[in-house]
Every structure is written in structure tokens, then in C-alpha cells.
């Protein structure tokens, strides 16, 4: 459950953000980081639907590649 997923913020409505990762959209709560901390286009580390912290695009990309590798290896 501690496997966080980096997502990019596409739209913000109060504490709710529409976020995207590899074509998948999800509503993510910004309640744990505050609504003015993030802007459209930013990346956030998401865990169980809540953004834990803002992150850089480069870190988001690295995390996704690791994720891909794990999914590939775990694919059965």
C-alpha cells in the first residue's frame, strides 16, 4: 500500500485535482498538502488517492520507469 504513483495535475477544483498518469485519469485529494501548494501541470506523489507531496517532472519520470519495470517483471 506504500507504493506511491506520480501523477500530473490536469485541473484543480478546491481540494480535488484531476490527475493523469500514463493516460489514466483519477481524482486526487490535495487535502494533505494544501490547495495553494500545487498548480496545473505540477507532479505529485499519490498514495491511496491523496497527494503526499509535490515532486519534480524528472523524479516523476524516474518513478514511472521503475513502476513499468516492476509491472513488467510481475506480469503473470
Amino acid at each position, binding site marked *: *500500500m*506504500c*507504493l506511491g504513483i506520480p501523477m500530473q495535475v490536469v485541473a484543480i477544483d478546491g481540494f480535488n485535482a484531476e490527475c493523469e498518469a500514463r493516460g489514466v485519469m483519477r*481524482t486526487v485529494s490535495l*487535502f494533505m498538502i494544501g490547495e495553494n501548494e500545487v498548480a496545473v501541470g505540477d507532479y505529485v*506523489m499519490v498514495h491511496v488517492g491523496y497527494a503526499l*507531496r509535490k515532486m519534480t517532472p524528472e523524479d516523476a519520470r*524516474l518513478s514511472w*520507469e521503475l513502476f513499468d519495470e516492476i509491472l513488467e517483471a510481475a506480469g503473470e
Partner: protein
Amino acid sequence: MKEDFTIARAWLERIQALPIEHPVAVMNVCGGHERSLTQLGLRGVLPPNVKLIPGPGCPVCVCPEEDLADAIALALTGKVTLVAFGDMLRVPINAPKGEVRSLAEARAKGADVRPISSPQEAVALATKSEKPVVFFVAGFETTTAPVAAMLAQGVPENLSVLLAARLTWPAVDALLRDPEARLDALIAPGHVATVMGANEWGFVADKYHLPVAVAGFSANSLLAALYSVLRQKLEGKPFLDNCYAELVAPEGNKRAQALLAGVMEVTDANWRGIGVIPRSGFALRGEWRRYDARERFEFAAQPRRRTGEMPPGCDCAAVVLGKKQPDQCRLYGKACTPQNPVGPCMVSDEGACHIWWQGGTRAAA
């Protein structure tokens, strides 16, 4: 574009150049770390004296039988919809033959049990539903803080929570206090530290004089952390290092911590296979107790004769404590597989046995 492994390779070469003459046991306490280490195949490329040991990094695995039994009993009353993270549904408890042993079995008997992947799904379900919805929560700080945020933000009155939430560091503290512990270093969990702060792990160096480094989940971050703790060990100068600084601040996410502290209080808590660890669990605080399913509903869980123990023959307790590796369990790969799991470590995506199985270890050692 793939992860640039030249940096990881450089870390690996630096590790391989270290004069490690005696075995060094490095524990991780995060299922995500164990998954990365296993899938990246790091055990196969590190010097033989570096022993990577999975520790208590799986909240599902340490969720006590009494909490699971409560959730099952509550679901079987037929008066509520019980939601939980998917992993929890298949975790078996000890029960006499013929009795319900898991939430999945309760569902098969007609109980309204549903898997969810986020607290917002529980809120959405309760909003639409006339029935009471109970959210059964097992998790570490990374899950508990979002649950606190969910309650603080406001939930429908028909939603309540059944908490089996745990803090990570007190379990490590308890392990290190054990004079039989043969651990030489710790890799601290990256996302727990993102919420709670890297500083929370300073006690490993300060109190136990052991090397510790916070790590993320990439090969780069994990190898950097391994290099750090091995070097600290060789130099005899342990300190708290942070190899996931891009996400982890020394003080963590203070807003999340404030939400957690406002809604929950820290209590003594039982860990399956380990026992009671002081101040290692969460309970709702003050006015928030009205959202506690245990206060709201009457249900009678079956009394259990072997409270806190793992199923017969199962070594999950030793695996969680880092005293046995998954493939040292007699049941591993024979009686116990992900398709037919006996113990919680084979059920959960974060359980060491499940991770090793997925990593290709298909038989006991």
C-alpha cells in the same frame, strides 16, 4: 526511455569496491522497498556479505487476528457495508473448521464486503448509500494520514472506521531493542518518511548506533542508501542519511502530521505474530470517536484460542521479524502459494513471501 542505470551502476561499483569482510545485515521495513530490491535483482549482484532482510513492512501481515475477526463479525451482522483495501479480503485467520476465516469468505456467505483502493471511494459509497458503511483500515502512516484527512475534511454520518492502523518506527525500535537482534543497518521507508519526516529515523543512529538511510524506490536511490549504510558501518560512524531528498524533507509533511495528530491518538497496539508494541497504533481521538465503528455497532467476534498467532506451520511471524527468509518457511511454495495462501505474507502485495514468489523464487530453500 528507461531509467538511466549508469548512476545505479556507479553506486553498485562503489559498493563492490568496499572492503566488506564480515556479513552485514541490512533490514528494510517497506513492502515497496522489498519489491524493488527483488524485482531489480539486487541480491544477485551485491557482494555476498551484504544480506538484505525484509522486516515488518507489510501492514496487512501484522494486522491482528482480533481486528480481522471484528471486521468479519461486523460484516456478518448484515447491517453494514464493509469496505477495505483489497489485500485485506483474503487474509485468513485461525477459526474452527466450518467458520468464516476471511472477509472474502464472509462475502461468499452473503455479507456486503467490498474492496476499495482509496478513502474517497468509501466516502462516495457512503454518500450514495442508505446503509451504514464501515471502512476497515489496516495501514501505516502513509494510509492513516489520508484516513485522518478524509475525516477532517468531513464525511457522511453513515460512514465509520474500524482502525487497525500502525506506526512503523516503534516496530523497528522494538526489534532493535531485542538483544538477539542481529541487524547492522536500516533502510528507512521513503513514503512513510515523506509524511512523517526523515528525522523520525534518527533514533536508529542515536540510540542504537546503527547506520540508517531513507531510500526511495528506484535502483539509484536504493543503491545510494545501501552504499551509505555500508560505508557508515565500515567507518564506525553511524548517522541518519537521506537518499530520497527529492521527496523527503527532514520534518516531513507538517500539514499531514497536523491532520493525523488532530484526528488520532497514539496507543499501544498488538502486531500479529509479534505481540503488543507500546505506542505503535492509532485510535480516534476525542470527538472523532463517534466515527469509531466499535462505538457504533454491537457485534460479537468469536473468541479465539490462539490470539495473535499465525496459522499452524506458518512462519510469517519469523518472516515479519526478519528472523527467517520467505523461502525458509516449510510451507513456502508447497502448501502456501499466492493462489492458495496460508499466511498473510503470501496474501498481501506487500508481504515478503508474495514478493519473492513474484520475483521468481518458487520453492523453499
